[in-house]
């Protein structure tokens, strides 16, 4: 407080926080960036790396729109500060497809019309990819429960469930 008052008196600017150089491996590509300590992983992706596929719905970890895979695990990128993740591997929706070939979940979401406005969709798909990797979902109710951190206000839940069930079944992990 005192330092700010002093700075103001001398009509100097109150300084913005200093930036730190970090490296994130995003979708397999090493990306160097300079971020302030208050920048979330979500804002680093959207504003610094122009990877806007990851969405901001609440900024409080309540809606799941910002879900990405961090070292293979699904996380809310809005609750993660970028500087904490120096060197980490991040997979976003932009990194799921292999070239022009869509990921099985992306195909299933289109086929089952598992979205309407599309805003929660990248988070739903990344979350579903994390769910499949966790190997915990055995029944439809398991999927519903384990996908409940991702809100879809358009209410596409039955179709999201159908899309995930289809991909699990293709992998020989039927959810019933």
């Amino acid at each position, binding site marked *: 407080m005192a330092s700010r008052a002093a700075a103001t008196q001398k009509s100097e600017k109150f300084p913005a926080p200093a930036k730190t150089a970090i490296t994130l491996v995003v979708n397999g590509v090493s990306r160097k960036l300079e971020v*302030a300590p208050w920048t979330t992983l979500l804002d680093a992706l959207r504003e610094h790396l122009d990877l806007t596929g990851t969405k901001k719905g609440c900024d409080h970890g309540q809606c799941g729109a910002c879900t990405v895979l961090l070292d293979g695990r699904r996380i809310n990128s809005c609750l993660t500060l970028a500087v904490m993740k120096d060197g980490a591997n991040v997979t976003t929706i932009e990194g799921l497809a292999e070239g022009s070939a869509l990921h099985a979940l992306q195909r299933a979401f289109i086929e089952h019309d598992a979205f309407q406005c599309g*805003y929660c969709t990248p988070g739903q798909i990344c979350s579903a990819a994390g769910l499949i990797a966790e190997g915990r979902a055995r029944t439809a109710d398991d999927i519903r429960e384990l996908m409940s951190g991702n809100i879809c*206000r358009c209410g596409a839940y039955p179709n999201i469930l159908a899309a995930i069930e289809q991909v699990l079944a293709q992998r020989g992990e039927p959810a019933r």
Partner: protein
Amino acid sequence: MATSSFGVPTPRVDGRAKVTGEAKYAAEFRARDLAYGFVIGSTIAKGRIRRIDTSEALAIEGVLDVFTHAHRPKLASSDDKYKDEVAPDTGSPYRPLYDDKIQFSGQPVALVVAEEPEIARFAADRVRIDYEREPHVTDFDAALRHGAKPNEEHAHEPRGNAAEAFARAPVKIEREYRMPVETHNPMETYATTAIYEADGRLTVYDKTQGAPNSWNYVSNVVCIPKSKVTVLSPFVGGAFGSGLRPQYQLPLAVMAARALKRSVRVTLTRQQMFTLGYRPANVQTLALGAERDGHLASFRHEVIGITSQFEDFQRNIVGWSNQLYRSAASELHQKLVKLDQNTPCDMRAPGGAEGLYAIECAMDELAYAAGIDPLELRLINYSEVDQEENQPYSSKELRACYRQGAEKFGWSKRSREPRSMRDGHELVGWGMASGIWEAMQMPAAARAVLTANGSVEVASATADIGPGTYTMMAQIAAEMLGVPIANVTARLGDSSLPKAPVEGGSFTTSSVGCAIHAACRAIRKELIGFASKMANSPLAGVSPDDVVFADGRMRHKDDASPAVLLLDAMRAGNAERIEKEGKVKPGEKTEAIPHYNADLAHFTHSAIFAEVKIDEELGVIRVTRVVNAVAAGRILNPLTAKSQILGAVVGGIGMALHEETLTDNRFGRFMNHNLAEYHVPVNADVHAIDVIFVEEKDDAINSLGVKGVGEIGIVGTAAAVANAIFHATGRRVRDLPITLDKVMGWSKPESQAANS
């Protein structure tokens, strides 16, 4: 002959963009030197701003400016400039950063603009605002004690003497139902990116349900010539009515960009989403009288809803009984009370979702009072005439909805008595309701261009907030011109395209779709004209209505003779491209709609059946099954149409069980302003939902025979769930949401508490 692609499930043409993250929403467009704005909202509900001290904020490195009512570019000074396409007729729209007056909590009072979003937000906390408070009224019950004023805009002629008929009726119920404020909460928060072009023009990416509406509004309000601004909105992350009116981030971003001569983005937080419009709270009183055989003798329905101090907003809530049932006498009233809050706005099926919740719960109560099955009671009172306008329906397959829905659900196996069905430790309840929504059409225009390489572009300034408008537009053009849908590009969300209404009210396909249909008809005519002049043409002298377009060719509909390639016809006509604009105007008979009849009533209908299971000890309510049978004219794309109904049913479950925006009346402020405390259904809350589209042919309504499906799925759903909860438990909870404390009797419903 090729079969029609109408009625064939068609995946979204923008599906790939949405699953790969390529679809860009309003806050996702880049610009060189982009600055970021953060909105500061008022902490008081009523009063004025005495002083704003921005010096501390301005002293922070990276802060560019702080705009306030005392420091801002010129804004329009007359009400008409602030009246957007959807503004209520009565009142004066709120003016962002106009003066020192505070009209609602959260009203923007300053915009901090900085080099980085975090700096803007941090600096916003350093702006000191001194308010002069005045007493506010945000408590609905307190306001009710001062009386409500009749809403003349929704006055209904009484039919017969409803009071007398009610007094005489051998079977009757009189009940009060309540609904809280609900907040739309689309997943994307409101945002505007105003890009300042080198020549001073502005390209504005806005989250809106109507780019033309935003364009008109912002150029009027911020005093920019219309030719210097374009509003784009290619993707919208949900809206549900909240984007029908331009939201305040739009003028704020544009005024900042103009003042700073650089691009500015303003994004609202989730908390700020609760400072926009909302579904207004209401109290509805219904008095229904019937003969012993169930025929309605008297239908009385009164609603008192909330609005702001500065605008009267209310939709048709009580009129629906006249449009749905047959009743000898009727008396309907709509009233308003004014609160120190922002003006409410349309939220999915505005008015219908509210009215049918109460009407259909009351019909269920009447069924029990009369000892008649709830479905049977609806059939007894089935109407062939809209009694509001005294007009027959252009089509009404509601009987088929009841029949097919009941069959799919297994309604005949229901035991009538409450608490008579169970599954282990859970009580089982089955309830049903009817739904109705008006099938409207608005003036709209669209352009279609066929190019000699076989590609088609269709364009209209409409929006796609999620229903699949891009796909609908492409599908109609593909069908009309007989080309693969992959050859068609659809463009929308651009104020410079042919004018379209806001996307809402379930009227986009009937309006924009029919305009595309008209544009493509004009292209067909030109192609037939070219083809008929070709040597030995099989189409010479053939009427356009007898020509079939398929597989890139056209041919006489009953003729096996050679078809003409569209591209050959274009070559014969020496045309590189054919461009046509199509327009529709409601109430107009044209050659595209020879059976149109303006003297018929146009409505969509539904029958909803719901099963709940309620833990007898814990009161936990699960909606385990819903069957929603819908009659909505022709269904162009069953895949996306089904999604509309599914999603609206989920919205209806939210209305019934979860959603409630709570006010802290000490501060006059919504307090559960986040997605952890404003509950919406999540995946685990949603179980089996079956959607049935019953066959309904309607050639008297519009050129496509469509009625729209955006609203109908939510109408009646909350009532079906509420009625199922009564059937399961024997307890009528008449104020939404029906939470477990109310079901278990742990807390008295507000309506009863007020009387005790």
